[in-house]
């Protein structure tokens, strides 16, 4: 930066100032729009609540030991009531406690998948879009191949081959989700490449790798975060689906998908074994979808109603 000519640096500064001033005003306006959307606000509050529940699970769960898997064979199949608000399962475990402990897996899994996707998809997309040419062609054709599979089918096959377990589910979901983000960031990079502040940086002799790292990637993070909020719900559903068919954690892990799968055998006698973990999935996914929709409305003026 020290070698920049005065004119170029003033130009850069102006560009920076214009972008940041407007974004400050805009962000205040955006927060207002976001919270005017009541569903989005409710979703955000619910997610915050669930994060608290996950952290303080031992305090929140009425029977923490059973949440982790301890059984009580004298209390099998108790229907929901004062003693057990969500009833008990086939091994006498309190369903509420297990649902509470399940929030940990439900929230941690999407976070891990998001991290993996950001680490792989975002840099690849940035490089492809910024450099263009054959590099772009190669990355995009590879994403074509991955996107040729319906996502969960590819994930199912991968976990089947890697062996069941939450770690392998996370790997499989990163493998199926990264191409979407590579494409998103590539599109951003192509338009950013032509923006004055990037052109100026290039003229000043800033190395390409530094431009990608310091300008292209940070500036494409906004849309990536919005898209991620929209996709978290889908990831939670996919984790649950893989666990449901027996590709996830082994019993007695308090995983919502696994709980439904176990409850399926007794669904006509003990519906609460299926219904409460299912509602927990539903509510959390719904909350993320509301927040995602709200964020998109804020950032995409065309979809404002």
């Amino acid at each position, binding site marked *: 930066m020290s070698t920049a000519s005065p004119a170029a640096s003033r130009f850069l500064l102006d560009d920076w100032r214009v972008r940041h001033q407007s974004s400050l005003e805009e962000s205040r306006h955006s927060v207002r729009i976001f919270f005017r959307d009541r569903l989005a606000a409710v979703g955000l509050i619910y997610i915050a609540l669930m994060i608290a529940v996950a952290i303080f699970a031992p305090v929140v769960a009425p029977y923490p030991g059973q949440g982790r898997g301890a059984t009580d064979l004298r209390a099998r199949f108790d229907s929901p009531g004062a003693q057990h608000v969500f009833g008990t399962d086939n091994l006498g475990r309190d369903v509420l406690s297990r649902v509470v402990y399940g929030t940990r897996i439900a929230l941690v899994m999407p976070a891990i998948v998001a991290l993996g996707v950001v680490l792989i998809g975002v840099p690849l997309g940035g490089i492809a879009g910024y450099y263009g040419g054959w590099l772009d062609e190669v990355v995009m054709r590879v994403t074509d191949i991955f996107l040729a599979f319906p*996502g969960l*089918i590819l994930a199912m096959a991968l976990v089947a081959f890697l062996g069941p377990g939450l770690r392998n589910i996370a790997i499989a979901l990163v493998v199926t989700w990264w191409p979407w983000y590579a494409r998103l960031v590539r599109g951003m990079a192509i338009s950013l490449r032509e923006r004055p502040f990037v052109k100026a940086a290039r003229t000043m002799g800033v190395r390409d790798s530094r431009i990608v790292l310091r300008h292209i990637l940070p500036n494409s993070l906004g849309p990536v975060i919005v898209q991620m909020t929209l996709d978290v719900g889908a990831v939670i559903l996919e984790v649950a689906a893989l666990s449901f068919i027996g590709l996830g954690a082994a019993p007695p892990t308090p995983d919502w998908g696994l709980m439904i799968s176990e409850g399926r055998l007794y669904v006509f006698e003990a519906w609460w074994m299926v219904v409460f973990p299912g509602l927990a999935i539903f509510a959390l996914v719904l909350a993320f979808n509301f927040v995602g929709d709200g964020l998109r409305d804020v950032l995409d003026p065309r979809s404002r109603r």
Partner: protein
Amino acid sequence: MSLRLYLVRRVGLLVFVLFGVSVLTFVMARVVPADPAVLYAGAGARGPAIEQARKILRLDGPLYEQYLGYVSGLAHGDWGTSLRTHRAVLPDILTFLPVTLELVFSALLLGLLAGVALGALTADRKGRAIDFVMRIFAVGGVSLPAFFVALVFQVLFFRALNVLPAAGMFSVDVAQNYPVSHVTGAPLLDALITGNLTALSDHLRYMVLPVLALAAYPTGVVMRMSRSAMLESLGQDYIRMARAMGVPRRTIIYRFALKNSLGPVLTVVGLMLAYAIIGAFFIELIFAWPGIGTYGTMSILSLDYPAIMAVTLFVAVIYVVVNLLVDLAIAWLDPRIVLS
């Protein structure tokens, strides 16, 4: 770009993608920690039997030779031999396919019709109570795991209300006394073709829950899409013009605006198909329908890796081809779209 050039490019891309897909499934199957030859030969098998199994499964020879053997097998209709049943995989898949197609197409059709109708309705009544309620339903539809909906349906409509059967495709009585003869393999079509009305009405009752459970997601997606497309076309000049000319509101909404909002809806058909195929895996399992989904999940649970490879590949091929057809249909229907 002209339509013809676009077509050539897309088909070229299709060939490349199919090649890549075959490489990817092949590579995936190489990470199996267990030795498939041992699985195939069965428990207690000794050296020679395992060597023979290795030969049958084409696991001898260097990797590139194995891949070439795999691809030429694919081209000749030899998609591998199941470790579980010791039968050729492709004929089995084709046997199970019609049931899955019946389920998937019924759900997609229902999702499209209901989704477009609800989207038009909510766009018409924008901001009123019904709009709000239906939008919550739409987001709800895409927030529910299909397998959970299926189980709740079983509890509600079979266990609690006892108005619909829990699982299967026919009642025992009908299956024994009025069996459907095999024509296409899809029970609905076969009952229709052979004029077996008893079986037809019986089968329709068994279809209700699986199709509804599978249609929840597509309905939600289409409804959201068609609502916003409707709102967009309602804001355009030709609509204002029609309104100024005194064309009845109903005609404007359900004839003019609806037609013009169908294009965007078409773009989500590929997405819907993906979800319907994935959903079918779970719905078939829960409702005990003998389709590809049930076959696929059984293969996964028994690590029947040639079958897993074949099902994955098969689904990918269908998905890629349908997506291409959808894209071509969009390009053909709407000349304004820039082909690239």
